[in-house]
């Protein structure tokens, strides 16, 4: 190897970050959201510790509204990789029948995702949690550190971030505090796709275009994934060739019309497209600083 390409450098940095956490934190976990970024993160973890297995479990915060295909993929992948998989569901929310159709996207996300994540971290007493967030996704993330500290109440204080000179990370925390660690901080969406292609990483088929039943809800096309969709809405379903640029709760994930059915075609479409990745997410559609506010409250 004569020189390192940009993907090589990004990979080496991510491996370094994961090994630091494994060495210095007592009880780390990798948050696995089943999306393409999680797929890359898991792949990097397998590389970082090879021939050992990654010395931490995977955890999925399941809102119970994820695409069925995601859940199948998640269980199969964890088994294939030989990783322990923890699945956490906010049972309070389930008991109260919380869902996006009945409670709206904001309350659903708050209860089934944000509050649920806090529950899970408290339950297992994880002191460090890997997340797949990238700095290019959104303005407030551009300023977040690789190691992002949370108070015992899971709050983020953007004014109290620790400097990260060179590749030195200070991982010390007081009891009850925790760290969110973002090994993909310096990756861009294009890097992720290029890496998936180069490393031949399997991703959920929903990323590829196929004929799927979709309806229009709140101005976006969403897929009819199960019979919890209100009947009047589900009745309006039409078959379209669509794919998804990000994956989340099916009623909150906008489909894009597409015929891209290979990785190359997806990347091609992405490079020629004119809207950013997060636009398909219903959660960002309020004011510009919404993500920063959510993060201060404990959203990943």
């Amino acid at each position, binding site marked *: 190897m004569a020189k390192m390409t940009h993907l090589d450098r990004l990979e080496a940095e991510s491996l370094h970050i994961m090994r630091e956490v494994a060495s210095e934190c007592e009880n780390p976990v990798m948050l696995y959201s089943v999306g393409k970024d999680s797929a890359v993160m898991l792949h990097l973890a397998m590389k970082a510790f090879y021939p050992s297995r990654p010395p931490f479990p995977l955890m999925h915060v399941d809102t119970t509204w994820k695409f069925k295909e995601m859940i199948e993929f998640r269980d199969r992948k964890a088994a294939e990789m030989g990783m322990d998989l923890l699945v956490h569901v906010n049972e309070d929310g389930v008991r109260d029948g919380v869902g996006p159709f009945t409670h709206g996207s904001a309350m659903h996300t708050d209860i089934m995702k944000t509050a649920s994540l806090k529950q899970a971290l408290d339950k297992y007493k994880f002191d460090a949690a890997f997340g797949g967030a990238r700095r290019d996704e959104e303005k407030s993330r551009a300023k977040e550190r690789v190691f992002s500290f949370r108070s015992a109440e899971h709050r983020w204080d953007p004014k109290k971030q620790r400097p990260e000179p060179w590749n030195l990370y200070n991982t010390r925390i007081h009891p009850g505090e925790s760290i969110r660690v973002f090994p993909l901080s310096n990756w861009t969406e294009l890097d992720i796709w290029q890496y998936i292609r180069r490393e031949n990483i399997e991703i959920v088929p929903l990323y590829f275009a196929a004929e799927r039943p979709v309806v229009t809800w709140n101005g976006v096309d969403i897929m009819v994934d199960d019979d919890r969709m209100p009947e009047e809405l589900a009745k309006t379903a039409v078959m379209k060739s669509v794919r998804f640029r990000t994956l989340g709760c099916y009623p909150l994930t906008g489909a894009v019309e597409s015929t891209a059915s290979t990785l190359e075609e997806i990347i091609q479409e992405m490079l020629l497209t004119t809207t950013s990745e997060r*636009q398909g997410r219903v959660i960002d559609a309020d004011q510009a600083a919404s993500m920063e506010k959510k993060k201060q409250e404990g959203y990943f």
Partner: protein
Amino acid sequence: MRLTDDLIASDIGAYLQKHEDKSLLRFITCGSVDDGKSTLIGRLLYDSKMIFEDQLASLEADSKRVGTQGENIDFALLVDGLAAEREQGITIDVAYRFFATDKRKFIVADTPGHEQYTRNMATGASTADVAILMIDARKGILTQTRRHSFITTLLGIRRLVLAVNKMDLVDYSEQVFNDIVEDFYDFADELATDLEIQPIPMSALAGINITETSRETDWYDGPSLMDYLETVPIGDKRLKAPFRMPVQWVNRPNLDFRGFSGQIAAGTVKPGDLIKTLPSGRQSTITRIVTATGDLDEAIAGQSVTLTLADEVDSSRGDVIVSADSPAEVSDQFQVRVLWMSDTPLLPGRRYLLKIGAKTVTATINAPKYGIDINTLNDMPAKTLELNQIGVTTLSLDQAIAFDPYDENREMGGFILIDRQSNDTVGLGMIDFALRRASNIHWQAIDIDRSTLAEQKGQKPAVLWFTGLSGSGKSTIANALQKRLFALGKHTFILDGDNVRHGLNRDLGFTDVDRVENVRRVSNVARLMSDAGLITLVSFISPFRDERQMARNLMADGEFVEIHVDTPLDVAESRDVKGLYKKARAGEIKNFTGIDSPYEPPLNPELRINTVGQSPEDAAETILDFLKEKGFLSD
């Protein structure tokens, strides 16, 4: 992302192949909002087609609403991230931006330029290959330009772009540009001898000389900013340096495999290479370079790999694997440059954690030799370092580490300092050189050792450390206890806070820095006394947990007995034997513990004495019982 490469549409496979092999350049932009720094970054993102239509739409809307460019796009809005910052119209943190051209991928560290954000700039500079210094053509070289040049070169950047911006406001005058460049060269000589400086006249707002050279400056024959960034060599002198790899993680999946995982900090490595592990110095041979996609024939600086060795070397996290021919130095005392990053000033003599590579050790930092005025580069006297101050100092570690001077290798010579109480990262530092080699350290061997001296006195040495508020009863109890011990034929001595301040510590006041030094000196005296076999009673307010821990660490195992004379503030104040509380309340005494200076009670003292409803004699008896029980008084 509207990259204008025809291949995207015609042959995506070929396009991707081509773009997989891009290199990565990291650079930092230095300047203030007024210099048009955010505008420049916004412009780079815009011109490299990294802005999506929805982002552009919201940018156009924002520009009209809060922008400073009238009906035109305010590129600065693209990069001002946090809500608080947007309101104030300033950038307050390090933000990282990404863009790519057909030739390279770029990571931009965008840092604010004001003096109060020096630490942010240093952080951004620590990983950058190139620094872009923004200069307003109308203003020329300012104090901040000197400061930014100093910080970036201090952190090791050797390639600087002198971005003379706002040339449109000086009619693209060649004379103005040349004068500024000349001024800068005069000054740059003081920075470093191996700088490579590229001056570029530009207008970020008008897009002049950003992506291509422009007619407006036809007298300028250098590259556009983008040309420069796309072609500047990413001079990895690390590649040619001797091999170094800090061990991050010992990889032991089973009894048959023992590998050492880490990121290579310098040089290259091949199976068969002779190596040493430091600080132990054990020699071995590389057998395999293991990765998940197969063994490698060679690995180079920057790669994260796992190495296996021919011999059973007992190496652990924090060790450094180095080339046996040219190993790194090992030492426990250094001269360093430190940039202080905390609101709480450096306390010389206090122990901080120092993290370098994968190693974390305890460091005692001495008072600075001198500070550096970051605006004039002149030396200046400094007793401590405050937020954003840079100083040259010495420090000693509790164990030896392997290192290279920072100027030779950033990863092997750069460190952070961590406060042990708050866990905050309080400083970053760069090793200049070792004060002595670890192998030269040896103590004067003493034939009559400390245990002999203690046996002679028929006792075990101890340091009884009385801590508590002024007026809590420390000295009274210590005196009562000393009488009882004397009666038992024990050899004792009392070190009293007030008395020591008349002599040994008469040059010290009551600031936090002086309190730390006060305790440092007294603990060392107490240590010498316990070496002499004495039972030493230290009666000292010693309000800070960290310093009492320092004293504890200084003593031999089990010889430190912390006694918290736990008198509530209101009781101590009502006693006010010396009339000090009254004066403190009246503002006549500053930094008085309990009033306007904190007292940190011990968390796990060996003894806690309640003085309310207990006489000093009874308290002394309680301590005596404890000493008997622990075997300090047995012959």
